[in-house]
């Protein structure tokens, strides 16, 4: 489109084509029905105006017509429903092996931390062609992470992790908008997502530098906060052994089962009394107020990295793909 008057957003993700396809179908059908109604009104208004058609013909109705214009729109809507749902399902299921970036939204900025430890503010560098999964939470109010060029958004909530994924298909710099009203500088809580060729991305990672990967930072916190005291890596601990726990189903003391996803780990740190693992006592203290969102994410990354036990050490430097990413 014209540079000064863009009328359509760029497409820069794998899903963008599908979203636009559905959009154009909706647009086409809507335009058809709108023009149909406009045309009918115009034609009837002229053809049957009082001066040429002084006597109205009383018509009670027509059951076949009513059924037709009820069922046909319903059928068309079901097509929209099916396609829209398919896209939504894809958006809700990040592929395995996605590169993970942790995101903290706060009034009024975005903070990013790559798993390899690089941190960014209001800018997110990602490689082209790679699935990227964002694990997000807010430090204060509800925000929303929105990249129009990727056609995805998700609310970023306080007290809970939410997720969003995309696969960039075009290099470039794209708008990042906060799209849930969050106070004074909501409209300035904007940034950029920068998609780079893989080689350039690697170069950027090296140049950027990091003080430890996220799981490493998490491991440090795990020691500093005293978690290791109870959560030993044998069966002697007063708390469950966390090796391999992430992504598995956990049995609780009241008979319920839950999947140990990011939100389960988060709740276990901040409000352990809410869910007690079967066979253990409710003695874990709460760390509410003692850990920041970033620290929580580091701890989650660390526990994820314990998903596959290593021969000698319980921890690992990388986070393998979780069994089932089910951030509810």
């Amino acid at each position, binding site marked *: 489109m014209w540079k000064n008057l863009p009328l359509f957003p760029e497409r820069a993700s794998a899903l963008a084509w599908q979203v636009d396809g559905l959009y154009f179908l909706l647009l086409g059908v809507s335009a058809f029905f709108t023009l149909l109604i406009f045309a009918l009104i115009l034609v009837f208004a002229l053809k049957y105006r009082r001066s040429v058609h002084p006597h109205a013909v009383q018509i009670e109705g027509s059951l076949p017509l009513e059924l037709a214009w009820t069922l046909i729109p319903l059928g068309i809507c079901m097509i929209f429903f099916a396609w829209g749902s398919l896209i939504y399902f894809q958006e809700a299921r990040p592929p395995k092996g996605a590169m993970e970036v942790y995101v903290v939204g706060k009034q009024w900025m975005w903070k990013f931390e790559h798993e390899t430890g690089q941190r960014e503010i209001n800018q997110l560098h990602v490689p082209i062609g790679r699935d990227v999964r964002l694990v997000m939470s807010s430090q204060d109010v509800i925000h929303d992470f929105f990249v129009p060029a990727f056609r995805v958004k998700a609310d970023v909530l306080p007290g809970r992790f939410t997720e969003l994924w995309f696969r960039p298909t075009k290099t470039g710099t794209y708008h990042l908008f906060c799209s849930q009203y969050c106070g004074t500088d909501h409209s300035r809580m904007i940034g950029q997502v920068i998609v780079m060729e893989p080689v350039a991305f690697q170069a950027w990672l090296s140049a950027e530098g990091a003080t430890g990967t996220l799981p490493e930072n998490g491991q440090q916190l795990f020691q500093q906060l005293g978690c290791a005291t109870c959560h030993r890596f044998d069966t002697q601990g007063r708390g469950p052994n966390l090796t391999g726990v992430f992504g598995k189903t956990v049995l609780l003391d*009241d008979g319920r089962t839950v999947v140990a996803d990011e939100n389960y780990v988060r709740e276990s740190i901040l*409000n352990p*009394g*809410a869910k007690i693992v079967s066979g253990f006592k*409710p003695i874990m203290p*709460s760390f*509410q107020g003692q850990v920041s969102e970033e620290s929580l994410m580091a701890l989650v990354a660390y526990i994820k990295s314990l998903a596959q036990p290593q021969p000698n050490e319980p921890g690992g430097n990388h986070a393998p793909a979780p069994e089932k990413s089910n951030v509810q």
Partner: protein
Amino acid sequence: MATSDIQVAEHALQHHFADMEQQQETSTFGMWMFLVTEIMFFGGLFCAYLVYRASYYQAFVEGSQKMNIWLGATNTAVLICSSLSMALGVRAAQMGKPKLMAVLLLITIVLGCGFLGIKAVEYHEHWVNHEFPGPNFHFETGDPAHPATDPVHTEIYFSLYWAMTGLHALHMVIGVGLVTWIIIAGLGGAYSRAYFTPVENVGLYWHFVDLVWIYLFPLLYLISKKHGG
């Protein structure tokens, strides 16, 4: 029916109704509709309660154990008796006995105030135990062997307790006011065998408020009989 009964009815007929039957049916229908809106009003709180209780059952059990079951049960009995006296009062109005109606409705008021008094005692108890949500909230189960597992969500339980019983108590106060008005109007000769619809409608309101309590009591007081649920 005596002429005086019918005269009372005619006096009460409003100008836009064709006859007393239409007026009575309309005003009763109106009261039922109003009670439907009240169900939706309390409904929001019940919905919040159900959601949190489902997610944080243990916290709710522990909060509920700090309720005084005896006071709550007494209050339930008090309200049920007040509904009885209310219903009998309506019957007295129907029989054209305004003095009997006044006595029965007075009993209703006394019982209603009794309910509010017991509620005040309970509220005071919870207040001094730091069981009012906010910066001064501090929850302890009172059993050293079983410390509070999830005080954060027990505070939510108490928020809902105060909100739901507080809203109910407000409705009781309004109800007492309405019954007082009926007594005064009744003693002034406003009702007769042919016209006692306001008495019936206030009765409906009173029974509704009673019914809300019948739901509140088990939900707030009787969550789990055993310690540690």
